[in-house]
């Protein structure tokens, strides 16, 4: 990633920071923008695991739930400050990610995917059944609004904060992908045995990918807890995990911008398709089938291909597709 590539992202981020003013401080727009930030973080985390390392997880809602419930509970029961709740939520999610990574260290493909489905379900069941702690199906209510120092964040300020977190995590992702660590993850995805023979500790780097994905999900969960103010187990379901997966695949797994594009498109899509209610999942289902069949690198892959055609590079071989 050369420096000359930065102006466009910087411009987009500036635009996003101005979004509330541009849209006349519309509450609905703010709400959708916050959800976009949260899902972008979730998708970026899963992309590390699925896109770069090639490990499928259909249980990210589990880590999302851990981050959300831990942060929410710390705020409700102990009255800890917002940032500390957020931090501990992410930390606990990371530790659970480490544990799940350790127990599945020999699993790949469909077997791993199944275990992650089970994991997500277990976490949801804990949220449902540990009523004294989580409130069960009645929900965890009364999470106080986020405070930085003594300042209670308005919805608009909360959006700025969520956007800032998203941008920081994006920059960290870019840095990691373009380092020894990102290369090791991609190498594991591309050719596990050769990666091992290049001196890459495959098991260790798998764990790193698991923990990054879990940590990002935990941060997203903490943000969601304070954004929503109440948590219900129904929200952290298998379909939620699948939606995160759809975002990554649709935008472009194993690309830097793919998860962002996927998260924003799917989130906004849900808003537009709301009248269709449960039929919208059918549309997303079809979408994913088509993307997997015809656009292996998602929307980013197609965009990159078009760009190369426009630049007259017929072979399309001048960029490492592995990167993004």
């Amino acid at each position, binding site marked *: 990633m050369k420096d000359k590539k930065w102006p466009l992202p910087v411009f987009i981020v500036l635009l996003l920071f101005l979004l509330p003013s541009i849209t006349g401080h519309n509450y609905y727009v703010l709400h959708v923008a916050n959800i976009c930030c949260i899902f972008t973080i979730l998708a970026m985390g899963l992309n590390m695991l699925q896109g770069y390392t090639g490990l499928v997880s259909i249980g990210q809602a589990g880590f999302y739930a851990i981050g959300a419930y831990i942060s929410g509970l710390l705020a409700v029961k102990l009255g800890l400050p917002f940032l500390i709740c957020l931090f501990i939520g992410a930390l606990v999610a990371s530790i659970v990610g480490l544990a799940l990574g350790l127990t599945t260290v020999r699993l790949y493909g469909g077997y791993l995917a199944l275990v992650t489905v089970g994991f997500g379900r277990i976490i949801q069941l804990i949220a449902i059944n540990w009523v004294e702690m989580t409130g069960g199906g009645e929900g965890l209510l009364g999470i106080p609004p986020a405070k930085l120092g003594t300042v209670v964040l308005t919805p608009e300020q909360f959006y700025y904060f969520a956007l800032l977190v998203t941008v920081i995590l994006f920059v*960290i992702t870019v840095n990691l992908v*373009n380092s*020894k*660590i990102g*290369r090791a993850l991609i190498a594991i995805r591309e050719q596990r045995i050769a990666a*091992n023979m*290049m*001196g890459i*500790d495959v098991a260790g780097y798998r764990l*790193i990918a698991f923990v990054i994905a879990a940590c990002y999900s935990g941060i997203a969960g903490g943000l969601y807890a304070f954004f929503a103010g109440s948590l219900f187990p129904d929200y952290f379901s298998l379909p939620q995990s699948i939606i995160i997966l759809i975002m990554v695949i649709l935008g472009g797994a194993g690309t830097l911008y793919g998860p962002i594009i996927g998260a924003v498109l799917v989130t906004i899509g849900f808003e537009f398709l709301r009248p269709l209610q449960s039929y919208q999942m059918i549309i997303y289902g079809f979408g994913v089938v088509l993307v997997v069949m015809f656009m292996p690198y998602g929307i980013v892959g197609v965009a990159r291909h078009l760009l190369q055609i426009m630049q007259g590079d017929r072979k399309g071989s001048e960029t490492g597709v592995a990167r993004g």
Partner: protein
Amino acid sequence: MLLEVNQVQMYFGGIKALDGVDVAIQPGTIHAVIGPNGSGKTTMFNVITGFYKPTSGKIHFNGIDITGEKPHFIVEKGMARTFQTLRLFPHMTVMENVVVGRHTRIRESFWRAAIRSRSTIKEEKGAYEKAEQVLDLVGLIDKRHQLANSLAYGEARLLEIARALASDPQLLLLDEPAAGMNPSETKQVMELVKQLCQKGLTIILVEHDMKAVMAYSDVVTVLDHGKKLAEGTPEEIQHNEHVISAYLGKRRGQQHA
């Protein structure tokens, strides 16, 4: 001795893939390992590089006991290998493939990489420079921005070697580097091997092309059914009765009824 393999046995259930093999590799030599199919050559590579844990026996590399250590540990100690079947990273560029080979020599911590610290930038730059040198050496520098899966077969084999070289190994294990190559490509690869050896690299070579083996290697070890059948200079091996019978069968008069 750079590498010492002592009485190594490798059993897969009842199959004795290696049955008490002793090999000692002198530094600065090209050491060929030959033998009929299924004689245990690739198994020996896999045992030496840590992919298999031997059933019994010891392996010392540079005086360190590496028996049963993991491949990433052994690579860091200065060993590298290529594979019989191509195992490149297909969707990475030629350059990126080689930089991955540099993995163990890049000093970057997770946190420094995450913030892209000055030291990380310096390490990355160094790794890419090293990769360029290696690609220049094997003659793939012009293809550095291409994806690995767009290379011709012979080029891909060279990339395998380049990737292995990027880790600055002392010992390079080449598993059939000339497999599937035409005579001129074979010569190109073997000349490269010779050049590497002259630069001080020690090479162990599994190869089926006898002409290449006899022309380029210093020592030849012959394996058959997991046992060492013979060892010596190419001339000695060519005239060894046991070797000839293992490859061509026994003379009619000597055969049992």
